[in-house]
Protein backbone atom coordinates (compact mmCIF):
# COMPACT_ATOMS: atom_id res chain seq x y z
CA UNK A 1 0.00 0.00 0.00
CA UNK A 2 1.39 3.37 -0.97
CA UNK A 3 1.88 5.79 1.85
CA UNK A 4 -0.10 9.01 1.78
CA UNK A 5 2.14 12.00 1.15
CA UNK A 6 1.54 15.71 1.38
CA UNK A 7 3.76 17.66 -1.02
CA UNK A 8 4.76 21.27 -0.53
CA UNK A 9 7.22 22.02 -3.32
CA UNK A 10 10.49 20.44 -2.15
CA UNK A 11 8.99 19.32 1.19
CA UNK A 12 7.29 15.94 1.46
CA UNK A 13 5.31 15.08 4.56
CA UNK A 14 4.43 11.43 5.32
CA UNK A 15 3.59 11.63 9.02
CA UNK A 16 -0.10 10.79 9.16
CA UNK A 17 -0.83 13.00 12.17
CA UNK A 18 0.70 16.02 10.47
CA UNK A 19 -1.35 15.24 7.35
CA UNK A 20 -4.54 14.83 9.38
CA UNK A 21 -3.86 18.09 11.20
CA UNK A 22 -3.23 19.93 7.97
CA UNK A 23 -6.35 18.46 6.35
CA UNK A 24 -8.38 19.64 9.34
CA UNK A 25 -7.51 23.23 8.37
CA UNK A 26 -7.41 22.69 4.63
CA UNK A 27 -10.90 21.16 4.48
CA UNK A 28 -12.26 24.32 6.06
CA UNK A 29 -10.23 27.09 4.45
CA UNK A 30 -8.73 25.53 1.30
CA UNK A 31 -5.24 26.85 1.94
CA UNK A 32 -3.29 24.21 -0.02
CA UNK A 33 -3.81 25.91 -3.37
CA UNK A 34 -2.96 29.30 -1.88
CA UNK A 35 0.23 27.97 -0.28
CA UNK A 36 1.32 26.31 -3.54
CA UNK A 37 0.67 29.43 -5.60
CA UNK A 38 2.15 31.93 -3.19
CA UNK A 39 4.93 29.99 -1.44
CA UNK A 40 5.92 26.48 -2.42
CA UNK A 41 5.50 26.48 -6.20
CA UNK A 42 6.25 30.15 -6.66
CA UNK A 43 9.28 31.34 -8.57
CA UNK A 44 11.13 34.62 -8.15
CA UNK A 45 13.26 36.24 -10.85
CA UNK A 46 16.91 35.20 -10.56
CA UNK A 47 19.79 37.62 -9.97
CA UNK A 48 17.87 40.85 -9.50
CA UNK A 49 20.87 42.31 -7.74
CA UNK A 50 21.39 44.28 -4.56
CA UNK A 51 20.07 47.57 -5.94
CA UNK A 52 16.65 46.02 -6.43
CA UNK A 53 16.39 45.19 -2.72
CA UNK A 54 16.07 48.69 -1.32
CA UNK A 55 12.32 49.04 -1.75
CA UNK A 56 11.82 45.86 0.25
CA UNK A 57 14.41 47.00 2.78
CA UNK A 58 12.53 50.29 3.24
CA UNK A 59 9.34 48.29 3.82
CA UNK A 60 11.11 46.08 6.37
CA UNK A 61 12.47 49.13 8.22
CA UNK A 62 8.93 50.58 8.24
CA UNK A 63 7.70 47.41 9.96
CA UNK A 64 10.59 47.62 12.44
CA UNK A 65 9.58 51.23 13.14
CA UNK A 66 6.04 50.04 13.90
CA UNK A 67 7.35 47.43 16.35
CA UNK A 68 9.89 49.65 18.14
CA UNK A 69 7.41 52.54 18.03
CA UNK A 70 4.68 50.48 19.72
CA UNK A 71 7.14 49.47 22.44
CA UNK A 72 8.24 53.10 22.98
CA UNK A 73 4.59 54.18 23.15
CA UNK A 74 4.08 51.98 26.20
CA UNK A 75 6.38 54.22 28.27
CA UNK A 76 6.24 57.56 26.47
CA UNK A 77 3.94 60.28 27.83
CA UNK A 78 2.77 62.99 25.39
CA UNK A 79 2.71 65.75 27.99
CA UNK A 80 5.05 68.74 27.79
CA UNK A 81 5.90 68.56 31.49
CA UNK A 82 6.84 64.88 31.58
CA UNK A 83 7.60 63.91 27.96
CA UNK A 84 11.32 64.59 28.32
CA UNK A 85 11.46 62.76 31.65
CA UNK A 86 9.62 59.77 30.18
CA UNK A 87 12.26 59.51 27.45
CA UNK A 88 15.01 59.76 30.08
CA UNK A 89 13.29 56.90 31.87
CA UNK A 90 13.11 54.87 28.64
CA UNK A 91 16.84 55.48 28.10
CA UNK A 92 17.98 54.76 31.68
CA UNK A 93 15.50 52.49 33.45
CA UNK A 94 13.30 50.57 31.04
CA UNK A 95 14.99 47.27 30.06
CA UNK A 96 16.32 47.65 26.50
CA UNK A 97 14.53 50.99 26.27
CA UNK A 98 17.77 52.57 25.03
CA UNK A 99 17.92 49.93 22.30
CA UNK A 100 14.32 50.42 21.18
CA UNK A 101 14.76 54.20 21.04
CA UNK A 102 18.13 53.84 19.32
CA UNK A 103 16.69 51.50 16.70
CA UNK A 104 13.69 53.78 16.20
CA UNK A 105 15.90 56.86 15.74
CA UNK A 106 18.41 55.08 13.50
CA UNK A 107 15.57 53.38 11.65
CA UNK A 108 14.12 56.76 10.74
CA UNK A 109 17.45 57.89 9.27
CA UNK A 110 18.11 54.57 7.51
CA UNK A 111 14.60 54.48 6.07
CA UNK A 112 15.10 57.83 4.40
CA UNK A 113 18.49 56.67 3.04
CA UNK A 114 17.08 53.39 1.70
CA UNK A 115 14.07 55.14 0.12
CA UNK A 116 16.40 57.60 -1.62
CA UNK A 117 18.54 54.72 -2.93
CA UNK A 118 15.38 52.89 -4.07
CA UNK A 119 14.13 56.03 -5.81
CA UNK A 120 17.48 56.61 -7.56
CA UNK A 121 17.51 53.03 -8.79
CA UNK A 122 13.97 53.34 -10.17
CA UNK A 123 14.90 56.61 -11.85
CA UNK A 124 18.16 55.42 -13.43
CA UNK A 125 16.62 52.15 -14.68
CA UNK A 126 13.58 53.96 -16.07
CA UNK A 127 11.22 51.70 -14.17
CA UNK A 128 8.77 54.59 -13.65
CA UNK A 129 7.82 54.38 -17.34
CA UNK A 130 4.61 52.79 -18.63
CA UNK A 131 2.84 50.88 -17.17
CA UNK A 132 4.29 51.94 -13.80
CA UNK A 133 3.73 55.72 -13.86
CA UNK A 134 1.16 55.69 -11.08
CA UNK A 135 3.40 53.60 -8.85
CA UNK A 136 6.18 56.20 -9.09
CA UNK A 137 3.66 58.83 -7.99
CA UNK A 138 2.53 56.67 -5.06
CA UNK A 139 6.22 56.10 -4.23
CA UNK A 140 7.04 59.82 -4.11
CA UNK A 141 4.08 60.27 -1.77
CA UNK A 142 5.45 57.44 0.38
CA UNK A 143 8.72 59.36 0.63
CA UNK A 144 6.86 62.53 1.60
CA UNK A 145 4.87 60.58 4.21
CA UNK A 146 8.16 59.26 5.62
CA UNK A 147 9.55 62.78 5.98
CA UNK A 148 6.24 63.71 7.63
CA UNK A 149 6.68 60.85 10.09
CA UNK A 150 10.26 61.97 10.75
CA UNK A 151 9.17 65.57 11.29
CA UNK A 152 6.28 64.73 13.64
CA UNK A 153 8.31 62.19 15.60
CA UNK A 154 11.18 64.61 16.08
CA UNK A 155 9.13 66.86 18.41
CA UNK A 156 7.95 64.10 20.73
CA UNK A 157 10.99 64.01 23.12
CA UNK A 158 10.30 67.73 23.72
CA UNK A 159 13.96 68.68 23.61
CA UNK A 160 15.28 72.17 23.00
CA UNK A 161 16.46 71.22 19.49
CA UNK A 162 13.16 69.53 18.58
CA UNK A 163 11.12 72.45 19.89
CA UNK A 164 12.97 75.09 17.88
CA UNK A 165 13.24 72.95 14.76
CA UNK A 166 9.45 72.62 14.95
CA UNK A 167 9.10 76.38 15.40
CA UNK A 168 10.99 76.88 12.12
CA UNK A 169 9.28 73.93 10.43
CA UNK A 170 5.77 75.11 11.21
CA UNK A 171 6.68 78.70 10.31
CA UNK A 172 7.60 77.66 6.74
CA UNK A 173 4.08 76.85 5.41
CA UNK A 174 2.86 80.21 6.75
CA UNK A 175 4.34 81.73 3.57
CA UNK A 176 1.78 79.93 1.39
CA UNK A 177 -0.53 82.60 -0.06
CA UNK A 178 -4.01 82.99 1.49
CA UNK A 179 -4.08 79.76 3.53
CA UNK A 180 -0.55 79.80 4.98
CA UNK A 181 -1.56 81.33 8.32
CA UNK A 182 -4.28 78.72 8.72
CA UNK A 183 -1.87 75.87 7.95
CA UNK A 184 0.52 77.12 10.63
CA UNK A 185 -2.37 77.54 13.07
CA UNK A 186 -3.60 74.01 12.31
CA UNK A 187 -0.13 72.50 12.69
CA UNK A 188 0.51 74.23 16.02
CA UNK A 189 -3.05 74.05 17.30
CA UNK A 190 -2.78 77.74 18.18
CA UNK A 191 -0.40 80.65 17.82
CA UNK A 192 2.34 79.09 19.94
CA UNK A 193 3.83 75.63 20.18
CA UNK A 194 2.62 74.02 23.38
CA UNK A 195 0.69 71.09 24.81
CA UNK A 196 -1.88 71.13 22.00
CA UNK A 197 0.94 70.92 19.44
CA UNK A 198 2.54 67.97 21.20
CA UNK A 199 -0.82 66.17 21.45
CA UNK A 200 -1.57 66.54 17.76
CA UNK A 201 1.98 65.71 16.69
CA UNK A 202 1.69 62.57 18.81
CA UNK A 203 -1.65 61.64 17.21
CA UNK A 204 -0.24 62.34 13.74
CA UNK A 205 2.96 60.40 14.42
CA UNK A 206 1.55 57.27 16.05
CA UNK A 207 -1.81 56.95 14.36
CA UNK A 208 -2.71 59.08 11.36
CA UNK A 209 0.51 58.97 9.33
CA UNK A 210 1.31 55.29 10.03
CA UNK A 211 -2.18 54.30 8.84
CA UNK A 212 -1.97 56.45 5.73
CA UNK A 213 1.57 55.16 5.04
CA UNK A 214 0.47 51.54 5.48
CA UNK A 215 -2.37 52.14 3.04
CA UNK A 216 -0.02 53.73 0.50
CA UNK A 217 2.44 50.84 0.90
CA UNK A 218 -0.49 48.50 0.18
CA UNK A 219 -1.29 50.43 -3.00
CA UNK A 220 2.41 50.34 -3.94
CA UNK A 221 2.65 46.55 -3.48
CA UNK A 222 -0.66 45.75 -5.19
CA UNK A 223 0.59 47.57 -8.28
CA UNK A 224 3.89 45.68 -8.21
CA UNK A 225 1.99 42.40 -8.05
CA UNK A 226 -0.31 43.35 -10.92
CA UNK A 227 2.47 44.73 -13.10
CA UNK A 228 5.24 42.31 -12.21
CA UNK A 229 8.90 43.01 -11.47
CA UNK A 230 10.31 45.28 -14.15
CA UNK A 231 13.42 43.17 -14.74
CA UNK A 232 16.62 44.37 -16.38
CA UNK A 233 16.55 47.14 -19.00
Amino acid sequence: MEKETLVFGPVKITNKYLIQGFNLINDRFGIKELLDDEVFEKIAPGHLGLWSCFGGISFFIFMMQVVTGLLLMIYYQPNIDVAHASITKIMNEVPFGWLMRGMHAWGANLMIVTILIHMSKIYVSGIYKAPRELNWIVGVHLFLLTTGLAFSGYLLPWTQLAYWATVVGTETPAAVPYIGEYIRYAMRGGEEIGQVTLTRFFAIHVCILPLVTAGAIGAHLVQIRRQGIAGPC
Partner: protein
Amino acid sequence: MAHATKFTKKKECEVKAIPYEEKKRLVREGKAHWFFPHHIVEQMVICMTIIMIMVTLSTLFPAHLGPMADPFDTPAHIKPEWYFLPAFYTLKFAQYFEFLGAWAPKLLGIVIQGIAVTLLIFVPILDMGGAERRPSRRPIAMILGGVGVFLTLLFGFLGHIA
Protein backbone atom coordinates in the same frame (compact mmCIF):
# COMPACT_ATOMS: atom_id res chain seq x y z
CA MET B 1 10.93 29.52 -24.69
CA ALA B 2 8.87 32.68 -24.49
CA HIS B 3 8.51 31.98 -20.77
CA ALA B 4 12.21 31.59 -20.31
CA THR B 5 13.32 34.88 -21.78
CA LYS B 6 10.57 37.22 -20.65
CA PHE B 7 9.13 35.86 -17.45
CA THR B 8 10.71 38.54 -15.22
CA LYS B 9 8.46 41.07 -16.91
CA LYS B 10 5.35 38.99 -16.30
CA LYS B 11 2.54 39.90 -13.97
CA GLU B 12 2.15 37.91 -10.79
CA CYS B 13 -0.93 36.10 -12.14
CA GLU B 14 0.91 35.17 -15.36
CA VAL B 15 3.91 33.78 -13.46
CA LYS B 16 1.44 31.78 -11.40
CA ALA B 17 -0.01 30.29 -14.58
CA ILE B 18 3.34 28.86 -15.72
CA PRO B 19 3.12 25.04 -15.37
CA TYR B 20 5.09 23.53 -12.47
CA GLU B 21 7.35 21.52 -14.81
CA GLU B 22 8.17 24.69 -16.74
CA LYS B 23 9.01 26.46 -13.48
CA LYS B 24 11.35 23.59 -12.58
CA ARG B 25 13.11 24.03 -15.91
CA LEU B 26 13.47 27.81 -15.39
CA VAL B 27 15.07 27.20 -12.01
CA ARG B 28 17.37 24.50 -13.44
CA GLU B 29 18.52 26.89 -16.15
CA GLY B 30 19.26 29.57 -13.55
CA LYS B 31 16.65 31.99 -14.90
CA ALA B 32 14.61 31.91 -11.71
CA HIS B 33 14.81 30.96 -8.03
CA TRP B 34 12.29 29.09 -5.96
CA PHE B 35 10.44 31.45 -3.69
CA PHE B 36 10.74 28.72 -1.04
CA PRO B 37 13.33 28.21 0.29
CA HIS B 38 15.79 30.22 -1.83
CA HIS B 39 14.07 33.60 -1.94
CA ILE B 40 12.77 33.44 1.64
CA VAL B 41 16.23 32.61 3.01
CA GLU B 42 17.71 35.45 0.97
CA GLN B 43 15.10 37.85 2.37
CA MET B 44 15.73 36.64 5.90
CA VAL B 45 19.48 37.18 5.53
CA ILE B 46 18.82 40.74 4.34
CA CYS B 47 16.37 41.39 7.21
CA MET B 48 18.81 40.00 9.78
CA THR B 49 21.57 42.17 8.31
CA ILE B 50 19.37 45.26 8.65
CA ILE B 51 18.54 44.39 12.28
CA MET B 52 22.26 43.80 12.91
CA ILE B 53 23.14 47.20 11.43
CA MET B 54 20.43 48.92 13.48
CA VAL B 55 21.47 47.23 16.73
CA THR B 56 25.16 47.96 16.08
CA LEU B 57 24.51 51.62 15.31
CA SER B 58 22.22 52.01 18.35
CA THR B 59 24.89 50.46 20.58
CA LEU B 60 27.90 52.35 19.25
CA PHE B 61 26.07 55.65 18.67
CA PRO B 62 23.14 55.73 21.12
CA ALA B 63 20.23 58.04 20.37
CA HIS B 64 21.02 61.48 21.77
CA LEU B 65 18.63 63.20 24.16
CA GLY B 66 19.25 66.95 24.37
CA PRO B 67 18.12 69.27 27.15
CA MET B 68 14.41 69.82 27.67
CA ALA B 69 12.65 72.45 25.55
CA ASP B 70 12.61 75.99 26.90
CA PRO B 71 10.31 78.32 24.91
CA PHE B 72 12.01 81.37 26.49
CA ASP B 73 15.53 80.44 25.43
CA THR B 74 16.07 80.67 21.67
CA PRO B 75 19.24 78.78 20.73
CA ALA B 76 21.83 80.56 18.57
CA HIS B 77 21.85 77.95 15.81
CA ILE B 78 18.67 76.12 14.88
CA LYS B 79 19.34 73.32 12.45
CA PRO B 80 17.08 70.51 11.35
CA GLU B 81 18.02 66.87 10.81
CA TRP B 82 20.19 66.16 7.77
CA TYR B 83 17.30 65.12 5.53
CA PHE B 84 15.65 68.52 5.95
CA LEU B 85 18.86 70.49 5.30
CA PRO B 86 18.18 71.04 1.56
CA ALA B 87 14.69 72.37 2.38
CA PHE B 88 16.18 74.42 5.23
CA TYR B 89 18.77 76.00 2.95
CA THR B 90 16.12 76.71 0.32
CA LEU B 91 14.52 79.07 2.85
CA LYS B 92 17.90 80.77 3.43
CA PHE B 93 18.61 80.85 -0.30
CA ALA B 94 15.30 82.60 -0.95
CA GLN B 95 16.49 85.48 1.23
CA TYR B 96 18.82 86.52 -1.61
CA PHE B 97 15.67 87.57 -3.47
CA GLU B 98 14.87 90.26 -0.93
CA PHE B 99 15.50 92.93 -3.59
CA LEU B 100 12.21 91.87 -5.21
CA GLY B 101 10.32 93.06 -2.18
CA ALA B 102 9.53 92.09 1.38
CA TRP B 103 7.19 89.30 0.24
CA ALA B 104 9.79 87.50 -1.84
CA PRO B 105 12.01 85.52 0.60
CA LYS B 106 9.25 83.69 2.45
CA LEU B 107 7.06 82.98 -0.55
CA LEU B 108 9.91 81.93 -2.86
CA GLY B 109 11.31 79.66 -0.15
CA ILE B 110 8.18 77.56 -0.19
CA VAL B 111 7.46 77.95 -3.91
CA ILE B 112 10.88 76.53 -4.86
CA GLN B 113 10.27 73.51 -2.61
CA GLY B 114 6.78 73.09 -4.03
CA ILE B 115 8.09 73.15 -7.59
CA ALA B 116 10.84 70.61 -6.78
CA VAL B 117 8.35 68.17 -5.22
CA THR B 118 5.84 68.66 -8.04
CA LEU B 119 8.54 67.96 -10.65
CA LEU B 120 9.51 64.80 -8.76
CA ILE B 121 5.90 63.60 -8.59
CA PHE B 122 5.31 64.13 -12.31
CA VAL B 123 8.57 62.58 -13.56
CA PRO B 124 6.71 59.82 -15.52
CA ILE B 125 4.57 62.41 -17.29
CA LEU B 126 7.37 64.91 -17.93
CA ASP B 127 9.71 62.23 -19.35
CA MET B 128 9.33 62.45 -23.12
CA GLY B 129 11.84 59.69 -23.79
CA GLY B 130 9.30 57.04 -24.78
CA ALA B 131 9.70 53.45 -23.64
CA GLU B 132 13.54 53.40 -23.70
CA ARG B 133 14.82 52.31 -20.29
CA ARG B 134 18.60 51.96 -20.71
CA PRO B 135 20.35 54.85 -18.93
CA SER B 136 22.89 55.17 -21.75
CA ARG B 137 20.09 55.91 -24.21
CA ARG B 138 18.43 58.51 -21.99
CA PRO B 139 21.06 61.27 -21.74
CA ILE B 140 18.58 64.08 -21.04
CA ALA B 141 16.86 62.21 -18.21
CA MET B 142 20.25 61.27 -16.75
CA ILE B 143 21.62 64.83 -16.95
CA LEU B 144 18.45 66.36 -15.44
CA GLY B 145 18.43 63.71 -12.70
CA GLY B 146 22.11 64.40 -12.03
CA VAL B 147 21.46 68.14 -11.82
CA GLY B 148 18.62 67.47 -9.37
CA VAL B 149 20.80 65.27 -7.17
CA PHE B 150 23.68 67.77 -7.37
CA LEU B 151 21.48 70.72 -6.37
CA THR B 152 19.95 68.72 -3.49
CA LEU B 153 23.40 67.71 -2.22
CA LEU B 154 24.73 71.25 -2.70
CA PHE B 155 21.81 72.80 -0.82
CA GLY B 156 22.18 70.15 1.87
CA PHE B 157 25.89 70.94 2.23
CA LEU B 158 25.31 74.70 2.25
CA GLY B 159 22.57 74.17 4.84
CA HIS B 160 25.02 72.13 6.90
CA ILE B 161 27.67 74.86 6.98
CA ALA B 162 25.21 77.77 7.17
